[in-house]
């Protein structure tokens, strides 16, 4: 081996040794870079997921609050209407108010829970419970509005009792004065028929809905409740129409009496019901 060859071989060995020492360093540098990038990507993904979750939670929370507010508003109005009912006992009134208040309280508690939910899973479960509780709301709202309408029909019946007593006095006075009251008497009888029908219908509506209970997921019971509510609703409508017809007849009687020009001298006596 010549000196030149020896030098070349030594250089080659040195280069190999140098390069072999440097390789792990290069390799280490690559691994570190990869871990760094992966960590960065992971953090970005987590941030993105958190952002997506926050947006989803906002949406779910907004919808849930809308529904809760809508129901609480309707229930509050209903409670006011219960307070105005006149033909039910104080005990019945208190019972209806308590039913409505329990729903309002339950929704208010749910709203607080929804505001405090920290995960989308918890929030979705709570939002779902709004849907589940809808069956109770969907029963008591029409049930109590129908009872309130029937109460109004009864209140009107009381007002008609006063009017009828006065009309009877005036018709008797006209008859005593020699007037022909045949047509007026016919109108008066028709008025009684309409008032009796209004009472039958509103009483039947009350009977249909007064004892309805939430279905608790029982489909057959849900359908039976719905049918009872629809039937009661139809009866309230008929009661309303009969009372309007009675009002029209009352107006015709008053006009006929006025046309007879008999001075009213008597007083009508009615029994006051408390």
């Amino acid at each position: 081996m010549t000196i030149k060859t020896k030098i070349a071989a030594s250089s080659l060995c040195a280069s190999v040794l140098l390069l072999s020492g440097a390789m792990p360093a290069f390799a280490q540098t690559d691994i570190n870079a990869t871990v760094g990038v992966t960590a960065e990507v992971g953090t970005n993904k987590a941030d993105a997921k958190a952002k997506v979750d926050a947006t989803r939670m906002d949406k779910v929370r907004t919808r849930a609050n809308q529904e809760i507010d809508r129901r609480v508003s309707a229930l509050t109005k209903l409670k006011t209407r219960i307070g105005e009912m006149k033909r039910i006992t104080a005990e019945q009134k208190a019972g209806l108010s308590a039913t409505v208040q329990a729903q309002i309280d339950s929704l208010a508690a749910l709203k607080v829970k929804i505001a405090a939910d920290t995960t989308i899973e918890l929030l979705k479960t709570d939002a779902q419970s709004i849907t589940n509780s809808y069956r109770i709301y969907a029963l008591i709202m029409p049930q109590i509005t129908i009872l309130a309408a029937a109460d109004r029909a009864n209140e009107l019946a009381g007002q008609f009792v006063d009017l009828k007593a006065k009309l009877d006095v005036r018709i008797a006075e006209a008859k005593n004065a020699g007037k022909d009251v045949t047509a007026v008497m016919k109108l008066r009888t028709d008025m009684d028929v309409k008032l009796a029908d209004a009472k039958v219908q509103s009483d039947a509506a009350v009977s249909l809905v007064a004892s309805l209970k939430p279905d608790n997921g029982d489909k057959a019971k849900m359908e039976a409740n719905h049918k009872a509510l629809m039937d009661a609703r139809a009866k309230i409508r008929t009661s309303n129409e009969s009372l309007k017809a009675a009002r029209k007849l009352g107006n015709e009687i008053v006009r006929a009496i006025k046309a007879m020009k008999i001075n009213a001298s008597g007083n009508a006596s009615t029994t006051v019901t408390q």
Partner: protein
Amino acid sequence: MSNGMKVGIVAIVIIFLGAWYANKDSAQAPLDNTGSSEQVGGGQQYSSTSDDSLDKDLASIDASLKAFDADSANADASLSDKPVTQGE
């Protein structure tokens, strides 16, 4: 006639007049009916039957019928209620 007797007679006359006046007022009460009605003992209510009173009754019934319409509309609305869909 002694003064004592005169005073006694005057007192009796005054008592009779007072009793007559009081009796006259209570007898007129149910008829003296310028308002629409007046409630007396026994749960009986006496009401004027004048044209004005009849008109007032009709107006009162109209107001209640209007309220009944509102009740009826509330019943319709409650039966056709739809919940806000929950979820995403």
